[in-house]
């Protein structure tokens, strides 16, 4: 008679090997069992971000946001990676973008994250499309109650004080509403579109 083993198996049952109690050889009879081991692994890397990201981070120190224009499709991507993530083409044209844009989508986080005491729930993370960019990037919406954030809301970057600026994306503390009228999003297909290969 065949047995449907998958159906019969209790996913929470202990493995068969552990069904009987573990016994130690007599020489170890009095030994205290090792209940856990800690084998710390730490490796140090000297990370070099590459051409495009280096440019981006240097510009951040001057409160400037650099993107890149794809030579194949004309789309503008930020942050830049030196390559069009759609066409796979190397990009050399650098585009300076304003520090303003709108909320493309957002979420409200109500649980704390370990080691980020600076993020006090509830807080709002948004996918922000900068003016002139073809795709969004991630930022915090600040200076507003998270419940009031909405798609299309206009935002401007809030930068660290000049004396604290570094070559880091952390220079932008968050994005605050400008009070301008909302962006009216009519072309929902604008992002991620690329002309099919004509061949």
């Amino acid at each position: 008679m065949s047995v449907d083993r998958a159906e019969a198996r209790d996913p929470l049952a202990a493995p068969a090997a552990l069904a009987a109690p573990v016994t130690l050889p007599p020489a170890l009879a009095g030994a205290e069992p090792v209940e856990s081991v800690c084998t710390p692994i730490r490796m140090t890397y000297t990370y070099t971000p590459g051409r495009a990201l280096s440019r981006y981070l240097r510009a951040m120190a001057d409160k400037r946001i650099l993107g890149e224009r794809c030579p194949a499709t004309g789309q503008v991507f930020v942050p830049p990676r030196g390559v069009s993530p759609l066409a796979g083409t190397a990009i050399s044209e650098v585009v300076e973008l304003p520090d303003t844009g709108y909320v493309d989508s957002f979420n409200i986080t109500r649980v704390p994250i370990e080691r980020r005491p600076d993020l006090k729930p509830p807080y709002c993370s948004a996918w922000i499309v900068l003016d002139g960019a073809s795709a969004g990037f991630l930022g915090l919406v600040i200076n507003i109650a998270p419940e009031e954030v909405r798609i299309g809301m206009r935002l401007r970057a809030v930068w660290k004080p000049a004396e604290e600026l570094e070559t880091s994306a952390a220079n932008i503390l968050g994005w605050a509403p400008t009070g301008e009228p909302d962006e009216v999003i009519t072309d929902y297909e604008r992002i991620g579109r690329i002309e099919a290969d004509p061949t």
Partner: protein
Amino acid sequence: MIDVAVVAFAQRQEAAISGESEVEFMVPLMEQAKAAVGLTQSDMGFTCSGSSDFLAGQAFSFVMTIDGTGPVPPISESHVEQDGAWALYEAWVKIQCGGIDTAFVYGYGKSSPGSLRDVLATQMDPYYVCPLWPDSYAVEALAARLMLEGGHVSEHRLAEIAARSRASAASNPHAVRTESKSVAEILAEDYAVDPLRPSDLPAEADGGCAVVLAAGDRARELCERPAWIRGMDHRSDAHTLGVRDLTSSASARLAAHYAAAAGDKVDLAELHGPFTTSEHLLIEALGLDEDSTAINPSGGALAAHTMMASGLIRIGEAASRIWRGDGDRAVAHATSGPCLQQNLVCVLEGD
């Protein structure tokens, strides 16, 4: 069995590529390989890559490099945390499954941001071995000591292998260690990790390579003299070093047997032996005759060792020589893991 050939190859290897990210230096190589046969990404039936997050120090680092392929419209794609030679194997199997006649394969590694000798310790057993942080050179030196004291090889023989690699690498623009040295000069070197001398160790490099595969008539259209894959197999020895015989390579011997590497004359062999000791074992395991077979005409992995690409580069180097008519039958080999743990053998032939 569907006939599959290597029809294009591009590579770059340097001691350290510090100013470019992985995707930045891979895009030109990807474009070069595709352009060599007039193809674009949309012509590729399948794309497969090999790389390692442990080298990049980033989770899912390979995803950023996929950007460089031109993945829109969506492509059929896979990745192996292995040398690119295993990505080529997956692509070859995919073509055997039918329905496609081209594949794009690449492998790359940038080990210079970290300490490669430490990074490689993390491929060992995580409970018993890795916490001791065995240096990868020291692990190979254990095998070398067994080989030397057991009479399996002499220091003179190892120095000959090192001298040959240096001499061959002189004409390879992608090699990193090209300075010529005589056997006597190599034997006069102080030990680096006793009993291994600096010339016995791989010249570590950053870089990558890209390969195009094509099947049957498509390969003939794309390439004047395709390098046909006549046999390919990969085998693995046990993970635990203690249970292995480190003075021979059982898995390389078996892979060579199933790839049918023996038999007809082998004009050239590109072996992925990071150490002189590994090259010696491979020549033995693959049953190569050094009088009739040119061993590592590129200088091999001793002359430039790019983690995650060196094995695929061996296949590309062997294929290039078939295209040029430098040989009719070649054996290419790739390895992974400590002391030749895993081995892949690929037999290439011209028409």
